[in-house]
């Protein structure tokens, strides 16, 4: 049963960070730095956004020799529509605590 609830602050932060550069492929570690989220919070969120069709991903070769490829992400058209409807925060202070 789907319930319409407002996105969590963490979700908003990730969507807005991705929407800031809609055509660019972003890496997880970069998103962590930009949103202030730790990996334990970010990756489950990315997984859920991907499951909901808001996020697309691809593997990109590493620029560093001998390193494994990196998973990169950007919003789908549906994700961009959702992100566009979000209010922009005046100051981004992201709490790690669950709402």
């Amino acid at each position, binding site marked *: 049963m*789907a*319930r*319409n*609830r407002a*996105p*969590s602050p*963490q*979700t908003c932060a990730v*969507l807005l960070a991705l929407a800031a550069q809609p055509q660019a492929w972003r*890496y*997880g*570690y970069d998103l962590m730095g930009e949103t202030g989220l*730790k*990996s*334990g*919070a*970010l*990756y*489950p*969120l*990315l*997984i*859920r*956004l991907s499951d*909901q069709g*808001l996020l697309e*991903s691809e*593997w990109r070769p*590493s620029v*560093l020799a001998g*390193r*494994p*490829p*990196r*998973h990169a992400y950007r919003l789908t058209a549906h994700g961009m529509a*959702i992100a566009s409807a979000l209010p922009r925060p005046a100051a981004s202070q992201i709490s790690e*605590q*669950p*709402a």
Partner: protein
Amino acid sequence: MINSLCARLLDHAARVMPGPRQTWLNAMHGEFAHIKNPLAAIAFALGCVQASYLQRIRDMMIFALITRWVLAAYALFCAGAYLLATALLGAIKATPQIKPEDLGTDPGTTESLSFIQAYPAWQLAVFVPIAGLLVMGAIQLVRRKRSALTLLASGAAIAVLLAVLDLSRAGGSDWPLAMSTGWLIPIIALALVWWLSRRAPDLKPA
């Protein structure tokens, strides 16, 4: 040593992460390989473990959903039992002329009647707020409110306190404490499962 610790953490994350999510585990591994700072690497690896457990819990969300309703139903059942006990014991205490044979012919009826008549009235009165807390906790649980566990825990704590007081009272219950409070075990177990499922921030919908 740090590399070894991180490797162990990532191995553990790999064991916990559900099979269909292995691509995401590989994604985290890929990012980890590009982190230079050792402390940041440990923090990232710990986050991978957390993410894996959250995914494992998410796969069990149906159990969390069932848990919430089962816990609420069980809390209501316990509340009903307390209210029934209040009514029955109160009626017996209010009838001083009652005799053991009025309650039945089972062995031990005389001792049971003595116990009930000697049971402090104020302790009996506390049964009602215990039931009230359990009912409110059940309602808040159905409404997915954070106060649910506090209310249930308060009701359970007062019940345990009463059981302990009763044990220490002369002429009090001769039941072991475990028997007096055994009904709490399902509440504690179910509440713990539900609380764990609530801790996952990603389990909230977008």
